[in-house]
């Protein structure tokens, strides 16, 4: 009997594997989700550039992920300090890129692909803070450097548990013991802090706060939010890395918190502005998803509703800060991802099952959560300021004012998002460059 049990531990579990294959597909869908959510929110002249920043981030980050990113996150902690994984241990996925290798109960290849998309999504989220004005090449360089210097270490802190992939993991997961199931700190606070830093480095758009910058397509924003929500089931429930009750609870809470956040965001809008808007509903969806990300396996359904309701309201109240404080976080990465991530991560200390203050847990977990939040925010903000400044001083991060006013799509990509008339089509200059 004992031999059989041992055998089972090293055999792939087909149920877990099937769910994680599906979860990986779901998280890939979040990339076009972000692209459409952000792309619909900008003016018509920069819709393509906004979408390209998400696609570009995926391309750069996943290549680096295979080269050394996975190893930096899930390799053995260098000197056991929990700060960074051994970059050489799984460089180019050595030893793991075959069909026999397992991580947990699933093929290593599936876990690697799943986690790699997390890195790409985190980078793509940042792009919302620098809409309409960033050089595409500079963004691609930033994406690679930021993933390497900021995301890979922080993901190691938060996602690398001892004895899962390697023997020693990150300090937040193992030494501190802050709870972050799917990335409230590593993904959302991380991206939000970086978005804040980049919006300060690049400065305000021409006419910020003076001329209207209204979303060019709210249906695209709604579609993007819907795709994000759908993909988020893979992001949260897939973070169980198993097809089990934890995944089920995470999935339930990913709906509960999100619906509560839609209600509270719309309520704030109705009271403050007089209208419940579609952009508010889409924003409430994302705010709720962000807030429940760290907490989806640590709270019961009521706790998820409370987190969602609080996050939707606080995030809705935070969107005005950029005008009051004068930073052009164009699509509210700070108000949605930084604030939403902080709310969700900290509230585990209040409503977390067994560990929260309201569930008889005392203040111990709350303190751990706050330390985790503070550490990720501080590291991401400071490191992003330095990376952003260096890129700005060397290759330049921002397009010229003329290009920005004329529209970044035409200036940088030589394309327009929409051709709504057959008139004035121009003429063909040449069409054989690819041959």
């Amino acid at each position, binding site marked *: 009997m004992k031999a059989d049990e041992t055998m089972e531990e090293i055999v792939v579990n087909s149920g877990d594997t099937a769910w994680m294959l599906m979860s990986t597909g779901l998280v890939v869908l979040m990339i076009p989700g972000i692209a459409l959510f952000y792309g619909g929110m900008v003016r018509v002249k920069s819709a393509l550039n906004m979408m390209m920043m998400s696609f570009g981030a995926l391309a750069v980050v996943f290549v680096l992920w295979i080269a050394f990113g996975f190893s930096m996150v899930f390799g053995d902690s260098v000197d056991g300090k929990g700060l960074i994984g051994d970059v050489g241990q799984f460089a180019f996925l050595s030893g793991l890129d075959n069909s026999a290798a397992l991580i947990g109960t699933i093929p290593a290849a599936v876990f690697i692909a799943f986690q790699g998309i997390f890195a790409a999504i985190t980078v793509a989220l940042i792009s919302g803070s620098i809409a309409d004005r960033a050089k595409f090449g500079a963004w691609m360089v930033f994406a690679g450097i930021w993933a390497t210097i900021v995301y890979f270490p922080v993901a190691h802190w938060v996602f690398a548990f001892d004895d899962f992939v390697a023997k020693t993991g990150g300090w937040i997961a193992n030494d501190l013991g802050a709870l972050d199931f799917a990335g409230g700190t590593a993904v959302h606070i991380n991206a939000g802090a970086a978005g804040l830093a980049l919006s300060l480095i690049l400065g305000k758009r021409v006419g910020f706060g003076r001329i*209207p910058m*209204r979303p060019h397509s709210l249906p695209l924003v709604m579609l993007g939010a819907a795709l994000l929500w759908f993909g988020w089931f893979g992001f949260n429930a897939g973070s169980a890395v198993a097809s089990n009750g934890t995944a089920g609870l995470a999935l339930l809470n990913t709906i509960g918190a999100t619906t509560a956040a839609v209600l509270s965001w719309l309520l704030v809008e109705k009271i403050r*502005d007089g209208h419940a808007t579609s*952009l508010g509903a889409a*924003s409430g969806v994302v705010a709720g998803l962000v807030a429940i990300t760290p907490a989806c396996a640590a709270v019961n359904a009521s706790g998820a509703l409370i987190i969602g309701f609080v996050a939707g309201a606080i995030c*809705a109240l935070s*969107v*005005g800060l950029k005008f009051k404080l004068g930073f052009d976080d164009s699509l509210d990465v700070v108000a949605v991802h930084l604030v939403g991530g902080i709310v969700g991560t900290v509230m585990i200390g209040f409503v977390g099952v067994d560990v929260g203050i309201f569930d008889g847990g005392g203040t111990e977990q709350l303190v751990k959560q706050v330390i985790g939040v503070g550490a990720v925010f501080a590291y991401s903000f400071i490191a992003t300021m330095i990376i952003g400044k260096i890129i700005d001083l060397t290759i330049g991060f921002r397009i010229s004012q003329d290009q920005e006013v004329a529209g970044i799509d035409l200036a940088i990509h030589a394309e327009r998002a929409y051709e709504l008339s057959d008139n004035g089509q121009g003429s063909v200059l040449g069409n054989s460059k690819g041959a």
Partner: protein
Amino acid sequence: MKLITAILKPFKLEDVKNALQAAGVSGMTVSEASGFGRQRGHTEVYRGAEYTVDLVPKVRLEVLVDDKDSDAVVDVIVKAASTGSIGDGKVWTTPVDQVIRVRTGERGSEAI
């Protein structure tokens, strides 16, 4: 000859077009326009940022007529376009020196 230009509420275009055809007007040019008069615009709110939008969508209708038909056609347009509420638009006439039909080269009243 006269050029009659009418700025209309978009939803009244069909009524005006039908009335003109019934009155014997055989052609017209319609374009989408935006502008404001006494009606002014509206406000929009995006994530709490409030914008005023002065320009209201309108339709611009243009008809070429003989001098003798001008007053009657203007009356047809005004009657068909009116809802009695603010923002119904304006109609004006402009003298026209010459009109040429491109296909045949006919000039003046013949070309209308």
